[in-house]
């Protein structure tokens, strides 16, 4: 019987690759993974955006309007709605000139979420990398 913690670390910008989005959909799958697990086991994910990965979390993405594709923003909101923690690295936001109000922070338009985006320092991310069982870099 174990609760295994996983850290999904997105280091690259959105849309050039499918992979940042797949980080979010994979993290979300933790909610339904019990069917493949022994009783009492579970996976507990956290999704972190670092480096250029923070560009994934910029608000007002119009990917559905422009290309008919779900935006990375929507996937972030989907995670917040289902209690998957979303962290964004503060130092990288500052480096890229991004303010907190430019970042997806809640899912109010989707009916509201229990949790909101956390703005963290790289030191917090480092600590999380040390304490989880597995690292998944995208």
């Amino acid at each position, binding site marked *: 019987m*174990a609760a*295994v913690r*996983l850290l999904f670390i997105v280091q*690259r910008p959105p849309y050039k*690759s*499918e*992979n940042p989005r*797949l*980080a979010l*959909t*994979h993290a*979300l*799958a*933790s909610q*339904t*993974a*019990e*069917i*493949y*697990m*022994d009783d009492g*086991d*579970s*996976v507990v*994910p956290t999704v972190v955006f670092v480096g250029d990965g923070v560009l994934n979390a910029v608000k007002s993405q119009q990917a559905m309007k422009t290309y008919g594709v779900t935006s990375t923003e929507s996937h972030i909101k989907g995670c917040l709605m289902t209690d998957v923690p979303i962290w964004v690295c503060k130092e990288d936001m500052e480096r890229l000139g991004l303010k907190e109000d430019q970042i997806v922070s809640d899912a109010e338009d989707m009916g509201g979420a229990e949790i909101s985006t956390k703005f963290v320092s790289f030191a917090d991310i480092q600590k999380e990398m040390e304490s989880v*069982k*597995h*690292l*998944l*870099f*995208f």
Partner: protein
Amino acid sequence: MAELTIGVFSSLVGSMSLDFSFRLADAAMAKGHKVNMWLSGNAVMMAKKGQKAFKDYSHNEKKMMELIGKGMEITVCEACAEARGYHKEDVPQGMKRASMDWYLAKTVKTDRLLHIGGE
């Protein structure tokens, strides 16, 4: 002996990360380790049987079938496959199609996870 789970997201022809993954799996199984493999993103290109073994292109189907025969579990992301037009009848024998939760569940018991999440 350990259990190793490899998750790959790279295309069949291109970065050669899939070639790397199958060779690593082979080396691990030769040492008696158990290997699970999850293919998502462009790596679902393995879920189409009948790939021609040209010398100009990476070809992994043969190696994959060998490893399946020796007990490697391999599952591809079902939605990623359907989005590319790969259906159930395209799947090589011994490969499973499932949702991402299959992979997430494997992370609980596996000793090591090598997640290749880039192209």
